[in-house]
């Protein structure tokens, strides 16, 4: 029935278009490339798969280089290792992306840094150095010291092991020096320090890339031999640069969270990641809700805000907390300085203008079902042109579903293809 109705609509409009000499759609400028990395194990193994499916189903990425510990997953190109990730950035991506392109890098992996989270059951405590790399940033006796992380924590608040003794990082006999802690992404074998991809290394590898806009999303967490952490927000101060959007589900000193369901099965994704990715999934009500400006598209800022409002670990529904961070103005904030988070209310402009693609939702009236009302909405603006010389000519951006500058048969076909679909 759906096919019949859709066919009738399409045929009618194709006939109309044929006699109307409508303009030909043009492809948007610039290409989109993605690198997806999942080294998290079962606790987060499904998250990149959700994103991969959304990108394949709804967005026009030129190519996706996909690394996963489970190489049998659909679309996976190679095993998620440090060497393969570095190769993906410094060879694959650098040879494909140009200064006009959009790049998405989405990483789900264990990590290391400095913990303010306390849970003795798993050997993690407040003030613990958790697989991070501590460097003295300021010596209280005036000796030369430097850490690119700046003055983050006093030695007396840097514990060696769970609820262990304070760590005298430079061995000078006092605990009054300020220390900076480098964060890392951990790859297998998790116990091998050489498989830690340090934030400084990631920053150096990204610096060789060409792009118009780069979005780096890191969902990180770790634990191993009583030294565990998530703390993905710690990558912001290292990776921040012009034309870059850095998004993390938590700040520099706290874990990000996933769940076992009521039957105690691992869901396989983070609370935050599920919401963030759902916001980009055109086939969901989440997309409609995330599209606050009703443009038919969801920007990175809208997806970030949607996840902020729906992440149960952020809203308090889950009795633990995480604070997602976003940086897109290149100033390295938010970050962690002298024991406190330093936020930045000025972020969000670039993220508001950046989309995964140009495709817009066919659910024009956002009622959760694609029906004749949506077809009529587009049809009523048929032959409208974005750059029409007549100032009285009405072109509604929202109805230009493929964003080619023309409201034409292609836009109506997009609605017709989804005819009678219902979003949940």
């Amino acid at each position, binding site marked *: 029935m759906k096919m019949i109705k859709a066919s009738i609509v399409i045929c009618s409009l194709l006939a109309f278009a044929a006699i109307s000499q409508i303009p030909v759609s043009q492809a948007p400028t610039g290409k989109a490339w993605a690198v997806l990395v999942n080294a998290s194990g*079962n606790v987060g193994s499904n998250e990149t798969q959700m994103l991969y499916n959304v990108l394949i189903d709804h967005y026009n990425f030129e190519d996706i280089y996909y690394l996963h*510990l489970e190489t049998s997953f659909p679309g996976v190109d190679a095993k998620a290792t440090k060497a393969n990730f570095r190769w993906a950035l410094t060879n694959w991506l650098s040879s494909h992306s140009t200064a006009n392109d959009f790049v998405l890098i989405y990483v789900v992996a264990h990590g290391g840094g400095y913990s303010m989270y306390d849970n003795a059951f798993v050997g993690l405590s407040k003030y613990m150095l958790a697989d991070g790399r501590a460097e003295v940033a300021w010596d209280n006796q005036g000796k030369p010291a430097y850490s690119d992380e700046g003055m983050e924590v006093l030695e007396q608040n840097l514990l060696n092991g769970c609820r262990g003794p304070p760590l005298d990082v430079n061995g000078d006999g006092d605990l009054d020096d300020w220390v900076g802690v480098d964060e890392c992404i951990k790859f297998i074998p*998790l116990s091998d320090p050489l498989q830690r991809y340090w934030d400084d290394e990631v920053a150096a590898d990204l610096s060789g890339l060409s792009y118009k806009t780069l979005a780096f999303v890191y969902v990180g967490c770790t634990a191993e031999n009583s030294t565990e*952490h998530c703390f993905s927000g710690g990558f912001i101060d290292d990776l921040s640069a012009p034309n870059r959007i850095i998004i993390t589900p938590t700040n520099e000193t706290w874990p990000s969270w996933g769940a076992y369901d*009521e039957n105690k099965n691992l869901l396989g994704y983070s609370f935050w990641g599920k919401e963030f990715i759902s916001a980009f999934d055109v086939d969901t009500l989440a997309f409609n809700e995330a599209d606050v400006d009703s443009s038919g598209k969801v920007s990175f800022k809208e997806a970030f805000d949607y996840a902020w409002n729906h992440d149960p670990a952020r809203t308090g529904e889950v009795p633990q907390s995480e604070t997602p961070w976003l940086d897109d103005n290149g100033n390295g904030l938010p970050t962690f300085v002298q024991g406190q988070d330093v936020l930045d209310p000025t972020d969000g402009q670039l993220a508001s203008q950046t989309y995964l693609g140009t495709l817009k939702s066919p659910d024009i009236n956002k009622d959760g079902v694609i029906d004749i009302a949506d077809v009529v909405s587009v049809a009523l603006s048929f032959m409208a042109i974005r750059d029409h010389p007549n100032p009285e000519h009405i072109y509604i951006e929202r109805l230009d579903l493929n964003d080619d500058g023309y409201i034409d048969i292609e836009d109506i076909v997009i609605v017709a293809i989804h005819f009678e679909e219902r979003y949940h």
Partner: protein
Amino acid sequence: MVSKKLPSSYMSANRVWLGLLCIVVLVGAVGGTLIGIFIGNRISSLESQVDSLQDTVSSLEDEVDRLLDELADMNSTRTFIFEWLSWEQNIVNGTLRMELTFAWKGENLSIIAKINDDEYGEQYEPDYNATMAEDLLVLVLDLNNDGQLVGESALMAYADNYTRGGVLCSNGQIATPLWEKQPSRFHTCVFEPDVGYTFNVVFPLVLLPELQHLSSDLVYVCFVDTGGSVDISFHWKT
């Protein structure tokens, strides 16, 4: 009969003596009264002190009783047995039996869980590149003594002696930080096909000082198997 009039000086002296006698009697009476009052007060004071001492003794006796109870409690072993019939769970074909034993042993809180699951559940863990235990015991104590378990950290005791962080949520979910399993400091587990799992959990005060102030005996125990899970919440001292 001839009356003899006494000399007036003699009369005066007698009056003086009589006056003195009266004074002495009066002073004696007053003094006696005062002494009586004093002694009465003193007795009253001593009585109240005795009462107070009796109260103290009584409260000390209560404290001794309480400490003796606590000592007995700490040295006592409490065992609970829970059963789920075959249609109430998907873990074993017959009745699933969970025997839980709680005991303070010196400075350690010991919890032993015996579960008659005769199949060892395991799965591949890609971040360890190894096959690891899938079955686990979830244990939540009311460490902040607020009478609620939601929000408390959970010990996720896997059958291969690994653990992972967890927090009990109101909807029955267990939220977990996205970190990998790691060797447990608090439990060991033995699996015998004929008997099932025996989880031996020991919380030493030295590693978990929160237990020093543990007054709530509310506990949540959940056994998770490949086929499903069973859980129970109860007070383990009463």
